[in-house]
């Protein structure tokens, strides 16, 4: 792909422009503009972090299923075998694989979200920004 500019730079530029015009908007559109800027940030993260996350997810699923395949193919089989009861929380390796997939996807979708079990922030540390919506 061409690099001058890269796709993620276009997303970054659009997000910055949305933030620039936000103060001139009525409350409803100002809110939607913030959502739109967050969408551009998600796109930027998916472009930069998505490929590695997909490679990790494919490796994790292949490890559980004991075979190679594409993301779509492995994901479909994983869903089907969980649904059938063939794979459960007791299956060795299943929860660690799902942990990798969940954490990577969350880092793309909503990096400020503090999931269940996350350690308490040190006191005095600024609280994370709000969820995108």
């Amino acid at each position: 792909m061409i690099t001058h500019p890269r796709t993620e730079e276009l997303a970054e530029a659009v997000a910055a422009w949305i933030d620039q015009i936000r103060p001139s908007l009525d409350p409803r559109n100002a809110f939607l503009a913030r959502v739109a800027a967050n969408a551009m940030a998600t796109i930027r993260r998916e472009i930069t972090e998505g490929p590695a996350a997909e490679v990790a997810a494919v490796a994790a699923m292949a490890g559980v299923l004991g075979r190679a395949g594409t993301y779509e193919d492995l994901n479909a089989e994983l869903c089907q075998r969980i649904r059938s009861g063939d794979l459960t929380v007791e299956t060795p390796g299943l929860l660690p694989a799902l942990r990798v997939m969940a954490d990577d996807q969350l880092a793309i979708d909503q990096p400020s979200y503090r999931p269940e079990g996350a350690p308490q922030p040190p006191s005095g540390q600024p609280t994370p920004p709000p969820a995108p919506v």
Partner: protein
Amino acid sequence: MTLDVADALSRLAHRLGGEGARLSDAGRLSGGASMETWGFVIEGAGAREDLILRRRSGAFDPENARSISLATEAALIRATGARGAPVPSVRHVCDDADGLGEAYVMGRVSGETLGKRIVSDPRFDAVRGGLARQCGAVLAQIHATPPPPGLALKTIDGIGELDRYEEVYRAVGAGRPILELAFQYLRKHVPDAVEPTLLHGDFRNGNLMFDPEKGLVAVLDWELSHIGDPAEDMGWICTNSWRFGRPDRPVGGFGDYADLLAGYAAAGGRPIELSRVRFWQMLGSLRWGVMCLTMYMSWANGTERSVERPMIGRRVSETEADLVTLLEQGL
């Protein structure tokens, strides 16, 4: 046809405030596709009333809707208020003569509903430690309220809820292994049946109004009220999506399980096991995950074109991250 709400409120001011009463400060406070809220003031002879109008702006289908009618909502607010639960006072249930459609009027309660502020704003530091216990006590009052007769409230249990959301998930067609595992796990861990009670149905940050000195001052938004397992209301306030960045404080981002349960028992609620609350909490994360998918679908099929909808669709992964931890920990 667009209804002129301000005009109708002006007529309502005369009806509620008597001769010479007049409307002031009418303005829309919030509104979605189906429900809107208006704030207004009636100034009468020497008296001034700060009021809220809640009205349905979209179509209501009682057969298929998850929510109840606004008249039912008003009846439940009155019934739970009579048992001591902190709720707004219902001033008037609108009829045809009001020309406002399905609507009711309540007294305005001041306080904070934004979860982020309740869990982190220093203004709430003094009361925060007591909020979980207070929520428990208020839930005991709500659950002890006999449902007023003739309201046609739906009865929902754990299996029914899993069936309902799995059907929605299958219809969406998204292959999400973590949601699949949560459905399977929860089906194996449905708690024993319990005597069902009246539930608020949406008891979480956003629908609870807090005061920096008095704590919980109003339970709002009763539209998802139904009959069911009392632990359902407890699990929903413990769902991490409503903890606003404080997963270390399981009750709403402000308190601990033990305080919620102790407040419930001390106020006369039948004691509830923590594992039962955790079942409904996990089902809460799963339910919110499926709801996020349906928000995306409403955009994908053209029903709702706001950019907000597909972005809520990207919140499924927050519930997946929460669910994996809950699956690791077990109930």
